[in-house]
């Protein structure tokens, strides 16, 4: 075998079937629809939560400031989580794909690193704020109970939050981090190929 294998010729002999242009247009339309739908779902969820809380506020007429603060903290926490998560996802989906490969991979890495940091921090913050919010919220109702039931209610709530904090949260973080670390490593490997 000589040294001059005609790679170009072989390369171009690969069979190719170009899908119908109409098919592509259908796919484009589907794509547009699904992008719109996900935007809708996020917003509907946010609005529904807010309305739900407003209704509680209106019907039960909380007397204590602590209840109101509790409600606000809880809502803000959930909103914060949703908004941050969505913005990160958006940033990731909208990386400018017309850059050079090198710049593009650098961007992927930096966003993944940000995500790595945010996921653990935000998730912890989320749990802390949610616990504080709930405890404040419950105070008004607990104060009307007998001491035994008030303590029992708080104990049960804190027990449940404790399980979340000590078992579910670390597990969740570990799972997410492993996935992201793996990706960062791969992208860094690709980036190193370009040096």
């Amino acid at each position, binding site marked *: *075998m000589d*040294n001059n*294998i005609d*790679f*170009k010729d*072989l*390369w*171009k*002999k*690969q*069979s*190719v079937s*170009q*899908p119908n*242009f109409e098919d*592509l247009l259908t*796919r*484009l339309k589907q*794509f547009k629809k699904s992008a719109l739908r996900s935007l809708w779902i996020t917003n509907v969820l946010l609005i529904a939560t807010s309305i739900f809380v407003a209704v509680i506020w209106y019907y039960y007429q909380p007397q204590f400031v602590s209840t109101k603060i509790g409600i606000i903290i809880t809502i803000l926490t959930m909103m914060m989580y949703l908004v941050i998560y969505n913005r990160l996802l958006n940033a990731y989906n909208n990386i400018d*794909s*017309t*850059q*050079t*490969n*090198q*710049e*593009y*991979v650098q961007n*992927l890495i930096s966003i993944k690193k940000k995500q790595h940091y945010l996921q653990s921090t935000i998730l912890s913050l989320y749990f802390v704020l949610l616990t504080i919010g709930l405890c404040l919220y419950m105070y008004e109702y607990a104060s009307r109970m007998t001491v035994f039931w008030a303590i029992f209610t708080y104990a049960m709530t804190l027990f449940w939050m404790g399980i979340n904090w000590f078992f579910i949260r670390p597990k969740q973080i570990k799972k997410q981090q492993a996935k992201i670390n793996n*990706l960062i490593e*791969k*992208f860094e490997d*690709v980036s190193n*190929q*370009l040096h």
Partner: protein
Amino acid sequence: MEFENIYKTYWDRIFRLCMGFVNDYDAAQDLAQETFIIVWQKLDTFRNESSIGTWIFRIASNNCLRQIEKNKRFPKSELPVHIIEEKQTSLEPQIQFLYKCIAELPETERIIISLELEDVRQTEIAKIVGLSETNTRVKIHRIKEKLTQKFKENGQ
């Protein structure tokens, strides 16, 4: 240039680039389609700073790099297996071997050699990948050597 024209002119070239990257007919078809979805979305942001070819190849190669993340999503779908088999048996083994060898290279080398085989000028390849021209030339030379070596070992 109009989208339909771009699609007709570039589909084959983009498909081969994706095929060189994944060496899987279905996955390459998906990647090529995704590329054209991005092209369609971004077409009005295209300014003639670079040639449209460079621009499209950048999108396509970046999209290929990105699929590293989705890798697990690619267990081949159940349905079209038969179609693939038909297509592949009709391919000359040498062509198959070439694509297999390319898909086994490191990711960026796959892109570089695919562009070279696609007759993209080396100055353009450098602009797509983000390397200097000298560096690109050296890389292309080395990759070709690697491929030749593999072909020899395989007795193709």
